[in-house]
């Protein structure tokens, strides 16, 4: 395998594996938030705000993988 194809393969793998964890995390986070909204609809505003903060932090992990994939393809 030459360096160019190894780079492309690495970019694909980093994106695929790197989005696995955040995807599971987002699913857990949002399902728990919806559960608690269903249980206590009167504090849904607070829960939604905190859910978005959590989404932002969880999503960042996938985006690091995305940036590394971009670097592998275009810069390295």
């Amino acid at each position, binding site marked *: 395998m030459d360096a160019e194809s190894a780079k492309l393969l690495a970019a694909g793998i980093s994106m695929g594996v790197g989005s696995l964890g955040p995807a599971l995390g987002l699913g857990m986070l949002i399902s728990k938030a919806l559960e608690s909204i269903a249980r206590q609809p009167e504090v849904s505003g607070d829960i939604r*705000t905190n859910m*978005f903060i959590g989404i932002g932090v969880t999503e960042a992990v996938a*985006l690091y993988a995305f940036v590394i994939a971009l670097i592998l393809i275009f810069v390295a």
Partner: protein
Amino acid sequence: MNRRLVLVAYLLVGLVALAVLAIIPGGEREEFDVAHEFELQPIVELPSIGPVDLSINKAVVYLWVTTAILVVLAVVIARSIKPVPSRFQYMMETIYDLARNGIVGSVMKSGQVTWFPYIAGAFFFVLVSNLIGLVPLPFAEHNQFGFYAATANLYVTLALALCTFLFTHYAGIRKNGFFRYFAGWAPSSAPPVLRQLILVIHAVSEAFRLVSLSVRLFANMLAGHAILGVFFAMALIFQSYLAALALQMGSVLIYLFEIFVAFIQAFIFAILSAVYIGGALDQEH
């Protein structure tokens, strides 16, 4: 009976159209590279001062457009405020209320009045900048219409995140005093060795806030625009009008999703800024 015939006729016409589309070969394949859309060519060449290149490029023009829209919007609304809001005023009041009560009010414990202007400013700036990224503007190469967002550029989002970073520590130092603020990074009840370790860990996490805040916005907008670009160029890539038609429907869905993402990313940027500044103001230890 008559309606059924009309329906069948429509169906037949549609099927024939699809068959024709499948038979006709697609357009000549032109060179298309999504990454090319995000390259910044200078529109007006200006001399550089030291390492700082002052040339005006696409991102700068988009920032200007964002600023102009925000200024005009603010002036128009401030001039025409009425007790009974018009539809336009009501919409702006809803977004203002989101910034005031949804972001600042629900996250910050103190300093709401002091820091509301900055957080609302960041929210509106990122929001408008994200949204005009979805409107084709004639700033691409050779004055063609193209999609670009200033926030799909790492330097722009890094500058925004740097504002939040600096304001966080400025707010913390102003409220708590220089030494008390940095001492407040670690709980005073911890043993001294552990406390130093916690201080180091906290300093690293502060630095990574800068990275995550800027990269999140940048990567979201870049990924969204890259996917939109690929979907719009499907006719060129697959060389088939049938595939292009099917995928254009997908591109409409992605476009709608991108409007949602533009809102969410502006919201997350503002709310994380509020969390960071609020955390520096009211230290827990």
